[in-house]
């Protein structure tokens, strides 16, 4: 009630939501650490391979698996390939899969959820039952069938993972849209004769952005884990290219003999996953509208 007496404050409050969120995020040390770590990791996998004197595929079979040393910081694998370089290249694949597959799931999930929530009634029921049915399918099996059926291209792997990852996103967005749909500003937009498409894209989705962003940061690590898993099963990226999943798989085979082959890729993957999770947690807290009243 107090807000209606001071309309100027409401306007100011609206613009400062993002600032508030940013302020709260900065106060969350773990989230800041996550962001810094992630930035560092992305920079490393982009720039690193150019700086490394080795290529990811050059074999030095006579050298074989050598322990970490000054010339090979992380050691070499059993075919004498520099592990540091392979981790950097593998990181490119893993991060690319993470971001690209998440983008696919984001696009499908947000649009599907928004349309379902906006349509209401029977169309909504049908659309959400479809999601429920897809949910019951063993998710890993779908990915495996898709990769087997569509061949072993990295792009298809992105698509395959993205295509099964959108379900939760669709549910979240639909929930948001269903509650937003009853709000006065949507009624106003309808009265003004805006097209449905414009209402969904310009008014509904931007208002549901908070949960979407948060869920996205949580999807990326999930997708990366899935890629690691699919590669672990031998269905992901193709040799001699590798991803962190493949490197960990190879490392696990020889962990008694050559532990560095397991330790370093695992550290790289864990650090990235931790960072993303910290950042996701931080964003969730920061973007929570109820926290704004503090």
């Amino acid at each position: 009630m107090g807000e209606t007496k001071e309309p100027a404050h409401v306007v100011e409050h609206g613009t400062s939501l993002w600032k508030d969120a940013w302020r709260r995020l900065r106060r969350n040390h773990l989230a800041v650490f996550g962001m810094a770590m992630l930035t560092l990791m992305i920079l490393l996998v982009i720039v690193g391979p150019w700086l490394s004197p080795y290529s990811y595929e050059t074999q030095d079979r006579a050298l074989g698996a050598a322990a970490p040393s000054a010339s090979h910081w992380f050691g070499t694998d059993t075919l004498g390939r520099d592990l540091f370089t392979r981790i950097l290249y593998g990181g490119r694949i893993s991060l690319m899969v993470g971001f690209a597959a998440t983008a696919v799931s984001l696009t499908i999930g947000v649009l599907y959820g928004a349309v379902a929530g906006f349509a209401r009634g029977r169309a909504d029921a049908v659309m959400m039952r479809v999601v429920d049915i897809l949910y019951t399918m063993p998710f890993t099996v779908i990915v495996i069938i898709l990769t087997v059926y569509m061949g072993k291209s990295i792009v298809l792997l992105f698509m395959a993972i993205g295509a099964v990852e959108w379900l939760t996103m669709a549910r979240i967005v639909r929930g948001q849209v269903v509650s937003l749909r009853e709000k006065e500003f949507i009624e106003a937009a309808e009265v003004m004769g805006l097209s449905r498409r414009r209402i969904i894209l310009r008014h509904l989705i931007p208002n549901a952005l908070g949960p979407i962003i948060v869920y996205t940061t949580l999807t990326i690590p999930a997708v990366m884990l899935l890629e690691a898993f699919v590669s672990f099963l031998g269905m992901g990226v193709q040799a001699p290219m590798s991803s962190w999943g493949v490197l960990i798989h190879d490392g696990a085979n020889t962990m008694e003999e050559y532990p560095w082959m397991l330790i370093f890729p695992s550290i790289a993957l864990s650090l990235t996953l931790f960072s993303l999770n910290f950042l996701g947690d931080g964003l969730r807290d920061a973007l929570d509208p109820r926290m704004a009243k503090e």
Partner: protein
Amino acid sequence: MRTALTILVLAALASTLPACSGGEKSSNTLRVAADTEPAALDPHLVTGFTEHRLLTSMFEGLTTLNQKTLAVEPGAAESWTVSDDGLVYTFKINPKAKWSDGTPLTAKDFVYGWRRHLSLNLASEYSYMLWCIKNAEAYNKGQLTDFDEVGAKALDDATLEVTLAYPAPYFLSMQIHYSWFPVLQSNIEAFGKIDDRNSKWTRAGNMVSNGPFKLVEWNPNQIIRVERNEHYWDAANVKLDAIEFYPMQNLLTEERSFQSGKVHFIETLLATKIETYRKEKPEVLRIEPFIGTYFYRFNTTRPPLDDPRVRRALAMAIDRQSICDSVMYGAASPAVALTPPELAGYTAKARIDFNVEEARRFLAEAGYPNGQGLRPIEILFNDSEDHERIAEAIQDMWKLNLNVEVTTNKQEWKVYLNTMNALGYDVVRSAWIADYLDPMNYMECFVTGGGNNRTGWSSKPYDDLVEQARYCVDPVQRYELLQQAEAILLEEAPIAPIYTYKQKLLVSPEVQGYDINPIGYLNYRSFSLASATP
């Protein structure tokens, strides 16, 4: 109340008693790692080595080999005579020999088994093993429909007369191979027709066999359990009560199972583990010679691999020494021909050596100077062992030496076999372990349309030479013909030899009577366990 409780406790104890004695029994159970889940347990349909291991425990051919000396010893046949021209073998079936259901084993069971294996509709890949029998090839190819004309006759229940098409000096030692095993007619026909590929007769409970052990449990991907066959003629000398085969997903699991004591021995140790065992547990590690060749098959029906110059270029660009020393940690020796060296006194004269200069020249002659215009080649391998590391090493060699792009493809064993048989590959990892000690065993794989050819390759001169060698009586001239055949094979290179195997075993000190021989032959009859002997 108290008495009731006591009775309950006693009853519970009593019920555990049989379980206890069962436990003691199982201490005399040999536990073995099987490299993969077998493709089948039908001796006339399988082609793999794991299947050989399993079937040798359940069935027995006319002869067996001595585990140590590999000398031919009586099996289901107690004695035999050979005609002077080496063409007619007369076997006396052991009168004590019986099937696992107690039915006496007769000469007719062998004739029936061979008729089954040679039937056109069964379409067995290994049926050519029997072609040394007179008219067997014609019958197998459907040119002959009356099996009476084939040279295998049961003169009476105890006498089997085999007339060969040509004197095969390896005929007796060949009998250890599953393609020669007998089957019981009533058993086969209770579950389907003689040539039914999908018959359920090999399921546990259905199968009747004549070997030292019989199938009691087959739980796919979990366990295959065979128990002592009390009807076996030499049952008194079978020391084990049972053998349990555990199909393993990969060699890493095998090694871990050995470490944890789940299995008594494993036959293939991952190359990457060799160094560790050399250092830490040399007493269980055994690296022994093995008559087997690891090679790549080329699909000669697919361009550009239909050009022998391309195949030869690829074959010559493989640095075998580097693979043996570095990728295989010394547990292999470079192979320059299909036949392993010193195979029954035969060493191939023709060779494919590592020669980058010449390989480049061949590739240029074929129209792909410096690999230009050549599409990427795919290497297919099954998902186990060190195949992946070897494929990656060869991928690197072909890229580096010939500028040929290579992709790799990994498949599960049964899928891999199907892809290979359907010629759905470019280059496929293969191996051939000698079924019997004669170079013929290798050479006859690659005759036109042979069940184990699997490359689509066909050469009339090669077929003729192998055929002549078959009929050749003079051993020196016979080897000379095989030399010429092998020279053609290596010249046209439908295959690229990579290395000659070495056995890489881990054997628990508990296992006794396990003499390792170069063909990897196992006669489970002679095995015993130290813990089981009183």
